[in-house]
């Protein structure tokens, strides 16, 4: 199982990495923005799961999501939005754009594992 963590906050990636690591998953990649995430995704396929922040510099999460979903090569990649942008309209936009699930910061370790289906 290969996981890509996309968040501009090092702290957030560190928390996610630790929590996912307790499940025995060690094949974890990181990116600080959507552009870097696309590059990491292309270079490291097959990637099983992307945990995706919304607000990031350079390329935000929703742009990454739409770009990745427009490419058939990434159709099997599970993409979970992980963001504090919790208004209903935002959730709807993410799911419509091809996100498989949505988790709201601040999350508990249990909620993260459940939403990832792990």
């Amino acid at each position, binding site marked *: 199982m290969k996981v890509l963590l996309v968040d501009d*906050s*090092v*702290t*957030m990636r*560190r*928390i996610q990495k*630790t929590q996912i690591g307790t499940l025995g998953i060690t094949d974890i990649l990181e990116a600080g923005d959507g552009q870097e995430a696309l590059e990491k995704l292309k270079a490291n396929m097959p990637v099983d799961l992307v945990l995706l922040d919304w*607000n990031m*510099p350079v390329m935000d999460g929703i742009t990454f999501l739409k770009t990745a979903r427009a490419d058939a090569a990434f159709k099997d990649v599970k993409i979970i939005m992980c*963001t*504090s*942008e*919790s*208004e209903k309209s935002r959730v709807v936009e993410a799911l419509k754009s091809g996100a498989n699930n949505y988790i*709201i*910061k*601040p*999350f*508990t370790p249990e*909620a993260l594992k459940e939403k990832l289906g792990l």
Partner: protein
Amino acid sequence: MDVSYVNPFINATLTWVKNMVGVEAKTLAPQLKRPPFPHYDISGVIGLSGGAAGSISFGFPMQSAVAIVSKMIQAPIKEDDADLIDAIGEIVNIVAGFAKRDLTHLNLSISLPNVILSNHILAGLSGAPTIVVPFTCPLGSFAMEVSLKTN
């Protein structure tokens, strides 16, 4: 004075501490900010704009910041670690983003966080009152300052 807009930020803070730090925080009575202003060692500040303008900040004594962030990332952090600055910025980002959900009528946009180091006080938006909300938790105390002026 209408301070109802402060409640979503209080709730978001309590939820952050419970979910991501794993302890329970308590809030003490919110106060209108008046001299002498509280001093902090490290603060995270985010600007709010849209249907209202202002800011939300968290001010910490260094000991509290180190203890809370260490627990949150499940690793000891030192006070001169660059990751401590990132963590304080992300905390205020998470709380502001989460609180927005209960303030949709204000259509708020949140800025990127700024983090202030060294002993300091926080100045609010001139013309808008600042509400100071002290919090305590088993890892230490900290304060939230919210200043918001509807357009």
